[in-house]
């Protein structure tokens, strides 16, 4: 789109040109209608979740949210109740605030650790020629698709009471998350770092800069967009994870997803607490997602189209 050939009118500046009209015709009324239906189907459920969160507990089984909305009985009470009073089958169950804090304590370090380690390895694979470099990189790339189920049982034994004894505590959860994040981290950062113009690195080498110096002065500053992409990926992945936390965590470390998944499956008298809890668990990832969507998309493209 940057430099249109003289024969083709510049569409960006003349929106009413013939070419532009031909483009508009591509989208028939049917296509527009279908797009609107898809957009609605992808949005309404989440709006429904928010509205259902506002239904008082004693009306949850008998009245749909649109009826409650019309009768004006909607309340924000449920959010405070699940967060500060209780979330579970009985009113003595622990509230979600502790799990919300656990989600933060699990997520933040597991964004930092794989980023730093991945950045170091990615630089080595991209710019330091060594024997076996190509093989190791392809091997790490292939590890990306290994289902993590394959590693769970032995890794839990290694971290458990008969091993290092950190399973069920935050360091154990951090370590498991960090390990499982490594293949994608190395691959994604490598794709980006390998595209840094070789002149820059070679010039620094000629000037006598060591790998450490290049890493801190050239690679880190130039990789900030890739770092942002991976940080968002990792944040969303860990925040939304259930499996790793369920296997390597304990009652002291369970994040929001764990109690929500449990109560959602019980369909009991306190089922009305599940929608507000689910909504609370989504607020932070949705904010991160919408404010940093640009980096997220860039990371997706770098991580998948090259593969």
């Amino acid at each position, binding site marked *: 789109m940057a430099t249109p050939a003289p024969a083709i009118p510049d569409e960006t500046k003349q929106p009413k040109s013939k070419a532009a009209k031909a483009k508009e015709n591509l989208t*028939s009324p049917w296509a527009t209608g279908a797009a609107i239906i898809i957009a609605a189907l992808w949005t309404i459920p989440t709006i*429904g979740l928010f509205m259902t969160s506002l239904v008082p*507990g004693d009306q949850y089984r008998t009245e*749909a949210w649109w009826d409650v909305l019309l009768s004006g009985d909607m309340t924000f009470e449920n959010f405070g109740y699940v967060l500060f009073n209780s979330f579970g089958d009985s009113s003595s169950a622990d509230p979600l605030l502790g799990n919300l804090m656990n989600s933060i304590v699990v997520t933040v370090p597991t964004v930092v650790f794989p980023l730093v380690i991945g950045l*170091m390895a990615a630089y080595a694979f991209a710019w330091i020629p060594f024997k076996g470099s190509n093989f190791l990189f392809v091997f790490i790339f292939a590890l990306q698709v290994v289902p993590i*189920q394959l590693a769970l049982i032995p890794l839990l034994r290694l971290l458990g009471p008969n091993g290092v004894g950190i399973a069920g505590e935050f360091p154990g959860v951090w370590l498991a998350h960090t390990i499982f994040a490594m293949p994608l981290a190395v691959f994604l950062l490598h794709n980006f770092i390998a595209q840094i113009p070789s002149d820059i690195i070679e010039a620094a080498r000629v000037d006598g800069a060591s790998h450490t110096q290049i890493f801190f002065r050239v690679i880190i500053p130039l990789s900030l967009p890739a770092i942002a992409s991976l940080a968002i990926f990792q944040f969303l992945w860990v925040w*939304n994870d259930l499996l790793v936390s369920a296997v390597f965590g304990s009652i002291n470390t369970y994040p929001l997803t764990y109690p929500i998944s449990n109560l959602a499956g019980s369909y009991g008298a306190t089922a009305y607490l599940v929608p507000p809890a689910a909504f609370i668990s989504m607020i932070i990832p949705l904010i991160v*997602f919408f404010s940093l969507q640009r980096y997220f998309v860039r990371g997706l493209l770098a991580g998948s189209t090259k593969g």
Partner: protein
Amino acid sequence: MSGIHEAAALVPQSGLDGEFWSTQGSNLLLAAISIVAFIAVVALVMFGADLVRGRIRDKVQLVVLITPVLVLLGIGLVYPVIDTVWLSFTEIVKEPDPVTGINTETSNFVGLQNYIYAFTDPTVFRTILNTLVWIVLVPLLSTGVGLAYAVFIDRAKGEKALKSLVFMPMAISFVGASVIWGSIMYDYNETGAQTGMLNAVLGTFGIGPINFLAEEPWNTFFLIVILSWIQTGFAMVIISAAIKGVPPEINEAASLDGANSWQRFWRITVPSIRGTLVVVMTTITIATLKVYDIVRTLTQGRYNTDVVANKMYVLSFVEQRQPLGAALAVILFIFVIPIVIYNVRSLQKVKETR
């Protein structure tokens, strides 16, 4: 309002006492210290390696750069995978020691016994069949809808906002999406008012109510819809970028030759982005194999909806039948192997053409 609320309001919030806050405080402190210590150690080692003089310096620094990732992957992924494969060929026998009376575990090699069990036991075999249905339908549904949507909104007004709407579920956890669909869309009351949106809509047409999660065999399909709803945004974003990479001149030339938009879609757009479509489908297939959250949250595998990933979790960590769980994990891996080979080959092709 409700009685439950009032009762709770009278009792001081027992869970959130001083002990609660001191636990939270020390957890946050632990996280902060760990991050700072980690970065400090990395920086120290890196700068330490910079003090080395002479020709060996480059080698030392290379070792420093790649050792952490190799150690983590070796201990955390490569060894466990090998161990899991071995475990899947064994059985664990717990017996009290004849002398001390303490329970001891011995593992015996039993060949393919766990695999034979997995393929002959009806409940376990059903999870394999269900997983096959998932890995066929989820990639097809999400890529199909994602492709259609990407084409429909290409160069439309407000394209970015329209993309965000469909992309948004990517930010939601599988658990959250399960709650959305389970209790908001699929909710079911045998009689009386329907509080679930889908049954309410169907009711206005005189259909239903349908118990979406219990109605076999369609319930598996209704669970598949949830994962497809999440993955469509991923497919759409990647495909949309690929569509923008198709030179507009080709479309214009075809248009002048009288090709309608349907023909242009099938003869130009789809062939030009075939590579991207394959990448998207394989990525979604791999993601689908691992997902156990949806089944665990909504049905716990009841009504014949169980999948291998959930059964593996239950067998290994609830019922403590690790060898059988290991066999299921290996079966998941076997599903992936063709994709691994394909991906490694195409990565090598990319490297060669560079």
